[in-house]
Each structure stands twice: as structure tokens, then as C-alpha cells.
């Protein structure tokens, strides 16, 4: 119906739009770490007015292609590689500039737990409940194994380097490439 790029607001990039949300969430997580007490956790149900404008800017930024993933099952492991391969196909196979492909992942049902932080994974034993094992221990995971970087290098490394950002299918690495996760 609409060209998402045509709706982009002047002077505000996707990264700018998300930076505030990321900073706020990071601050919240840091606060938990400092306090170290569950009693410091407060529920906050965001009102649409708190994120709607920035969100619309983020999903409407100018791009050549727009992909949407429906992520309903945490046991579907192909999601992560599919996203990475799509981005790499655009950039390295078709020679399109970085950022040409905007990817949004809409999680729901058990897919939602990929967007929950480590405190939730530990408190509710989400790994045991949903059959997700921590590859470092082989035991049911008490942390979000989908979130951290999986490679150590940056975008300065070539895609042939297995440690480059281009080979990272973790959420942090994918978000560095512009992927938006919704929960």
C-alpha cells in the first residue's frame, strides 16, 4: 500500500529512533545489576505514546527491501541464520549498500522469550520450561542465549572471516545491522 521509505521523517534515522529506547532499556538492566535485589524491579507497561512515533520512524526508514519474520516458536532455530543470510545476500551477493534490507522480527507465543532479558530467564527458568539448553553447559539455560554476540569481530572484517559481524546471528549483532525485534 505505502512505500515505507516515503514516510520517513526528516532528520531522524532508524538508529536515532531506537537509540533512546536502547539507552533506556540498558539503563534499566544496569539498575537491576547495581541494586541486586528483586525488590528493585518495577513493572512498567509502556503506553503507545512513549514509543509509537519513534517506532513508526524506525519501520518506515528508506530501504530497498523490507522483510518481516513471524517468529512464533523458540524451537525454530533457522530464524537466526535466515536473517543473517538475507542481509548477507543483499549486501554481498547482490552488491547492495549496507542497510538496503530492513528486517523486522515480530515475536509472539514462545518466540517472545528470545526478547526477555537474563533476569527473566533465570527467575522463571525459561530454558527448562521451553527446552532451551545453554551450549556452554549443556543444561537448561538460565540466560538468554539468543541475545549476545556470537562472533567477536566487527564490520571491518571481511565476510570470509568467521569472526566478522557479518557472520553473527545473535540478536545484538543483528540489531547492529538494523534488525528490529518486536515482542
Amino acid at each position: 500500500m505505502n512505500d515505507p521509505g516515503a514516510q520517513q521523517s526528516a532528520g531522524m534515522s532508524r538508529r536515532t529512533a531506537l537509540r533512546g529506547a536502547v539507552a533506556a532499556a540498558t539503563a534499566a538492566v544496569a539498575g537491576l545489576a547495581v541494586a541486586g535485589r528483586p525488590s528493585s524491579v518495577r513493572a512498567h507497561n509502556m503506553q503507545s505514546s512513549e514509543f509509537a512515533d519513534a517506532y513508526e520512524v524506525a519501520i518506515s526508514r528508506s530501504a530497498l527491501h523490507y522483510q518481516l519474520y513471524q517468529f512464533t516458536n523458540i524451537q525454530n532455530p533457522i530464524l537466526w541464520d535466515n536473517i543473517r543470510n538475507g542481509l548477507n545476500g543483499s549486501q554481498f551477493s547482490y552488491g547492495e549498500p549496507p542497510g538496503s534490507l530492513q528486517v523486522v522480527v515480530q515475536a509472539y507465543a514462545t518466540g517472545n522469550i528470545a526478547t526477555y532479558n537474563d533476569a527473566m530467564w533465570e527467575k522463571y527458568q525459561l530454558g527448562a520450561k521451553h527446552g532451551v539448553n545453554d551450549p556452554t553447559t549443556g543444561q537448561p539455560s538460565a540466560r538468554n542465549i539468543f541475545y549476545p554476540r556470537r562472533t567477536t569481530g566487527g564490520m571491518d572484517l571481511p565476510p570470509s572471516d568467521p569472526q566478522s559481524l557479518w557472520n553473527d546471528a545473535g540478536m545484538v549483532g543483528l540489531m547492529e545491522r538494523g534488525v528490529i525485534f518486536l515482542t
Partner: protein
Amino acid sequence: MANLVPGTIAIPAAVFEIVRLQEKGYKLVVNH
């Protein structure tokens, strides 16, 4: 938002949002 990983955006009614994003030009891709 304290229970979400940094960068995640909370959107109510996920299935409706999938429809809305497609109406805005997003292509729903096969994911299996």
C-alpha cells in the same frame, strides 16, 4: 520494559502488527 532485552520494542497485538507491516510494504518471508 525492564524485562526485555535492550533494543526490543514492545508492540501490542502481534498478529495485527504483522498485517499492518505488510500493508506498509513489508514482505512476510518463509521461516522454516
